């Protein structure tokens, strides 16, 4: 039996009819499309899978100092640890431990009535378990943070949905925390604060070198928000915060550099609205080194019940609420920092980061800064080492 002739099965192609013609009829990627029809072809690499297959241990040490003109300094030293362990192809466990040691006087307007220095230690730990199911992943996490006068326990659930081509991921997160405040000066005893938090986000690969992420977070809480160490501090007993964060990264092949941009808009029911813009450039260098300068600008408006100094004249605010805590004042702040990192053989890496931060009322954009408060400055150093295995 003769097979049916090829010519009977399909129309003659333009290029076969005129073999000497140049390839005007070569559609881009046509060979690849033809190759994908072969049995069992899997292009690219298995990085299309979402679950990590390598464990990580990371250690970091933070050294933080802040100061205001003419005031004593505050110092914080924090070692912390993070580990990730892939239990199987589809199950990952992560956890972290932090130990904050805070010493020194707190900034001027943060002093207690007695003017005492503070010495505070905080221990925090968290665990997260993630299970991957192919088109989606589910995580469950828990966190505890404990200080002499404050205990916070929280849990969260997260779901990630991966698109078919794995270029888009939707994230849905929900969590809650229950806090207990027991200040050493016994202004309140066992004050509670409960918070519920929700986030919807999407991450999209825009092109082989561009990725964007946008999240909206809503949190609602009630309970004790005032600062027990400040004389005359009376804040609302509920708080809602809505934040919209967008981040964008782009890699420039010609320079081996990555541009990272971020913008966050935040509305706080305390009455404050804040805008944050940050930018960084990660420059690859030879031999596994990289250097990354970064800038951040932040501006916030004052809380409804914030009272300008000198305190107590000019109070009370609406509904008998008032605070002089400059954290709730109107100001702008700049951070400038640089990170130097190196990747070694066999999964070791190291990084060193230094940041300088300064907060000033007259740096506010979009409104006037709160009068009568000094600038506030801080600097911090982070040294980290990590190993993948």
């Amino acid at each position: 039996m003769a097979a049916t002739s090829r010519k009977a099965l399909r129309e003659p192609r333009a290029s076969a009819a005129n073999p000497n013609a140049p390839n005007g009829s070569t559609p881009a990627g046509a060979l690849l499309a033809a190759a994908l029809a072969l049995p069992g072809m899997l292009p690219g690499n298995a990085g299309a899978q979402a679950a990590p297959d390598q464990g990580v241990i990371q250690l970091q040490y933070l050294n933080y100092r802040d100061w205001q003109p003419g005031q004593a300094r505050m110092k914080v030293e924090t070692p912390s640890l993070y580990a990730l362990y892939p239990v199987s192809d589809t199950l990952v466990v992560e956890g972290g431990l932090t130990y904050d040691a805070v010493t020194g006087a707190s900034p001027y307007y943060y002093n207690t009535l007695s003017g005492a220095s503070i010495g505070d230690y905080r221990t925090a730990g968290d665990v997260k378990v993630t299970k991957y199911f192919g088109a989606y992943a589910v995580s469950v996490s828990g966190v505890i943070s404990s200080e002499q006068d404050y205990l916070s326990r929280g849990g969260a659930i997260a779901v990630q949905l991966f698109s078919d081509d794995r270029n888009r991921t939707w994230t849905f997160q929900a969590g809650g925390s229950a806090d207990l405040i027991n200040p050493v000066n016994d202004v309140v005893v066992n004050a509670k604060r409960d918070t519920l938090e929700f986030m919807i986000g999407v991450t999209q690969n825009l092109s082989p070198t561009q990725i964007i992420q946008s999240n909206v977070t809503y949190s609602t809480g009630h309970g004790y928000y005032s600062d027990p160490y400040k004389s005359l501090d009376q804040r609302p007993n509920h708080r809602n915060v809505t934040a919209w964060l967008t981040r964008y990264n782009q890699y420039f092949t010609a320079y081996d550099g990555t541009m990272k941009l971020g913008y966050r808009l935040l509305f706080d029911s305390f009455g404050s609205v804040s805008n944050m813009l940050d930018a960084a450039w990660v420059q690859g260098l030879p031999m596994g080194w990289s250097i990354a300068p970064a800038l951040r600008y932040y501006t916030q408006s004052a809380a409804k019940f914030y009272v300008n100094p000198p305190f107590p004249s000019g109070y009370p605010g609406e509904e008998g609420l008032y605070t002089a805590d400059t954290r709730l004042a109107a100001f702008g702040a700049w951070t400038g920092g640089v990170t130097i990192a190196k990747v070694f053989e066999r999964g070791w890496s190291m990084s060193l980061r230094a940041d300088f931060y300064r907060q000033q009322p007259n740096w506010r954009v979009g409104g006037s800064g709160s009068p009568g408060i000094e600038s506030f400055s801080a600097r911090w150093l982070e040294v980290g080492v990590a190993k993948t295995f």
Partner: protein
Amino acid sequence: MPPEAPLLRTTFRAMAAENDLQLWSPDASRAQRASDAAIADVQRIEAKYSRYLADSVTSRINQAAGGSAVAIDSETAALLRFADHCFDLSGGLFDITSGVLRRVWDFKARPPTLPDDAALEATTRLVDWAGVEWDGHSIRLPRRGMEIDFGGIGKEYAADRAAAICIEHGIRHGLVNLAGDVRVLGPQPEGTPWRIGIVHPRRPGATIAGLELAAGAVATSGDYERFFELDGRRYCHILNPRTGRPVAHWQSVSIIAPLCIVAGSCATIAMLHEGNAREFLDAQQVEWLGVAADGKLHGPAARFAAG
């Protein structure tokens, strides 16, 4: 915490060459299972399509030339369909029936001699992919003496199949290297790309460029694999199917593409296109490195040149 697993490197002989499989997984036994399965499939493909083995599919098809049709399975049909696409995309230059020209070009003869024009012309008439009768179930070579061979795509296909098998076993880091046709299935265990050297076409043992790949494939077609030189001219084994004569424009062309079979066929087609290669390669949107007859480097991947 699992102990740190070593990189599993296996060298094996297949398709008349030394081949190399490097795989890494946190689970060393999984890497071993993947390696065994991948090597077994490479050997299966060699046994099925090698024209040197009398009972291979290729040999059975060639022995029936001028006679009745031979039944083929879906894998063979898919390879023929791919070869047919290459034929169309290359304007008829990539022709899997052109292996018969081997009979008149003897690269092993000492001293080397050029074929006489009559023999060359007669043999060129047996190169005729357009006249082959085939469909999804069978193939018939219409004239006695006609031959097909998968030499231009078989090794590259095997590299992609080996990579797919490793990926199916859950391996995320490694590469398959079949005598210089390389398919990367994932970066090195530390996340860095693999460094793959491109052979210098005129200096054995030296490399002319070092590519860095974390995914995808690279294949090279060159005039240095089988050739002879006569009166200062090089005659290589890549033969234009219409003239029956070797190409001369490029010393070698290397292609980076998502699949090794695409890289390999593009490289061969580029060599066959000679002066028109650039236009073809730009349309395929692959990264390429060409070493011209004068030794100069061309193409976007020329930035990987050594030194």
